[in-house]
C-alpha cells in the first residue's frame, strides 16, 4: 500500500496560486463595487 505523502503548500507554490486566484476574485468584486449601478447610470442620463 502506498504511504501517504504530505504535500507542502509552500514548496508546491500552492499558496501563490491561491493568492492569485483570490486576487482575481477580489479584483472583479472591487471593479463591480467601483462601478456605478445600472439604476444610477440611468438616473444620470435622465
Amino acid at each position: 500500500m502506498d504511504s501517504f505523502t504530505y504535500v507542502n503548500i509552500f514548496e508546491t507554490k500552492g499558496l501563490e496560486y491561491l493568492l492569485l486566484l483570490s486576487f482575481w476574485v477580489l479584483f472583479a468584486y472591487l471593479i463591480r463595487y467601483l462601478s456605478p449601478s445600472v439604476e444610477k447610470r440611468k438616473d444620470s442620463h435622465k
Partner: protein
Amino acid sequence: MNNNVAVVGSFGQFYKFLLQELKPRGPWLTPFNIISIPVILTGLVILYFRFVYGLGSVTNLSQETAWGLWLGFDVITGVALAGGAYVITFVVYVMKVEKYQSIVRITVLNGFLAYAFYGGALLLDVGRPWNGLNPYIGNSFGFSSVLFLICWHFLLYMFAQFLEFSPVIAEWLHWEKAQRILKKLTLGTVILGITLSILHQSGLGALFLMAKPKIHPLWWSEFMPILFFVSSIYAGLAMIIFEGTISHRVFKALINPKSHHSFDDMVFGLAKGAAITMFVYYFFKALLFIHDKQWDMINDGWGYWYLVEVIGFVLIPALMFAFGFRNRSLKIIKVASVMALFGVILNRLNVSVITFNWFADVHYYPSWQEIVVTLMVIFAEVWVFRWVVTRMPVFSSNH
C-alpha cells in the same frame, strides 16, 4: 496673470514685461512666508558650508552610508510624487478623457518643478557635482549603469515637460503664433514623456537591485522596478488630489466657480484610479512576500515596520479610496490621499535610507542641516510654483 500687455513682441517690451512680472504681489507677511524665508536663508548658508568644506561638514553621510535624506527624499521620493504628470497626460491626450483637461496644466507644472528641484537636488548630494555633466557630454559614459539611463531620462523628461507646459508660457507672453506651433507638438511630447517616465520610474527601482546585500529582504525584490512603477501611478494620483485641494483653497480667486465644482468630480475619478492601482500594488507585495517565503521575518521589529507600511499605508488607504468613491465622500478620499502619499514616502525612504544597512551597528540618521536643506528645496519649489501660478494662465486658458 497679467492681461494688460497686448503683445510682448520686441526685446524692450519683453524686458519691461518681465521686470513688471518679477515684482512681488500680494501681502508679504503670510504664515507661509514667515516660515519659508528663514528656512530658505538658513539652507543657503548650509549649502555654502557644504560646497566649501564638503559633504561631511553638514551631513551624517559616511563611506558606509553614502546615500542619505537628500537622495532618499528629494530624488527617490520626489520623482515618485511627480508621477501625476505622466498619468494625467496619458489619460487626457492618449485616452482622450477630456474631463481632466482642466488639471493638465497645473499637474504638468508640478511635475516639471518637482523634477527641476528634486532632480537638481541630486547635485547637492554628489561629492563632485561638476562630474554630473559626464553622462551627457560623453566623458566616461557608463552604458551599463542604471544611473546612466536615469540621468538621460531626467534631462529628456524635463525638456518634454517644459515643452508640454510651453503653450502656457506663450499664452502668458501673448505669442499666439508660437502657442499654435507649440500646441501642435503636445501629443508627440506627451507620448515621449510617458515613455521616459515609465522607464525611469522603474529605473529608480532598478537602481537598488544591485544593493541586495544591503537592503532588508522584506523590501528588496527582483521586481522592485515594477513595484516602483506601479506605486508611482497612485502616488501621482494621490498627489494631484492633495495638491489640487490645497491649490483650490489658496488660489481660489484665480479659479472660476465652475472649475471648483468640476474638480470635486475629478477627485472621485482619481480616487477610483488610485484604489484600483493600490489594490494591484498590494497584491504584488503579498505575492512577493509569499514567493520569497518571508514568514519568518515578520516576527520582529522590521517585520512589524513592514506591516505598518503595507497594511497601514497601502491596503487601508486603498480601501478608503474605494469607500470614499462609492459613498461620494471627499473627506475620506482626501485623508486617503495623504495616507497614500505618506505610504509612498515611507516606502522610498525604507528602501533608500531606513532599511539600508539594516544589520549595521551604527545607523544613519539625517543631521538637522540635511533636514533644513530638504525643507529649503521644498519651499523654494513652492515659491516658484506660486510665482508661476499667479502670473501665467495655469488654471484657465484664454483660448
